[in-house]
């Protein structure tokens, strides 16, 4: 797996994932720049993404939807806040209604992507920051991670042990 590390920083409301790819920085940049490549990996196979608009420039917007197994569509928008080819891009990511108007109360994620050349390979660091009240819930989900892991360890013990009485 090309993933080197991932980290959930509860206090800073941040999720970071670092991956290394056996390709040039310019090649990896294309998977963000080219919407046809982007939509091949942004959504899972069960919810593929389609980018209707992709203004890949500072201040530009992207509109996309993800199509669920029943044909339902979930729409989202991006706003590119920084683009420095081929090393850095940043964008805000939020939900949209059927007219592509931002659904503000669902919260915005800010993503910062950095591509670095490390001995001919490309290290991609993606930092996702959660800012709004609704995003807080996603942060809380991360906050519960440790508690969950503890609880999960105990489940296995409980399942393995004979039932009391």
């Amino acid at each position, binding site marked *: *797996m090309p993933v080197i590390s991932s980290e959930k920083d509860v206090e800073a409301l941040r*999720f970071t994932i670092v*991956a290394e790819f056996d390709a040039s920085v310019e090649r990896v940049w294309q998977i963000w720049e080219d919407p046809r490549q982007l939509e091949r990996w942004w959504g899972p196979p069960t919810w593929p993404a389609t980018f209707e608009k992709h203004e890949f420039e500072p201040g530009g917007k992207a509109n996309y939807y993800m199509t669920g197994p029943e044909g339902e569509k*979930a729409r989202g928008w991006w706003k590119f806040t920084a683009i420095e080819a081929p090393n850095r891009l940043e964008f805000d990511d939020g939900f949209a209604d059927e007219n592509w108007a931002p659904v503000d109360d669902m919260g915005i*994620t800010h993503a910062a992507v950095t591509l670095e050349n490390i001995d001919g390979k490309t290290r991609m660091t993606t930092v996702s920051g959660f800012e709004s009240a609704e995003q807080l*819930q*996603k942060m809380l*989900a991360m906050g519960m991670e440790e508690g*969950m892991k503890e609880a999960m360890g105990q*489940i296995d013990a409980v399942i393995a042990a004979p039932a009391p009485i």
Partner: protein
Amino acid sequence: MVVDQVSDSELDRLFQALADATRRDIVARVLTGEYSVSGLAAEYAMSFAAVQKHVAVLERASLVTKEKRGREQMVRIHLEGLRRARRLLDDYEEIWQQRVARIDDILAEG
């Protein structure tokens, strides 16, 4: 933006339920066996009503079940709910891992 097969409200209930340290502690306790609500209340420096409220949140998130027995309300872990919680959480965490794997596949095409 993250989209998964599960509904947002379902996820929210689950995440909210487990976002609180007391509720996580209640889950950890009832994992070892059933507790009465008053038995749980005795473990925390808070009112019976407050503990009852925490239990109700866990119940709504399908993490515990409550059953009336005599004058007591017995709280038990709902393992299926907890397993589902783990699955949802794993899904959530894996979104980026999977994206990275898909990127790697695309890059491998040359």
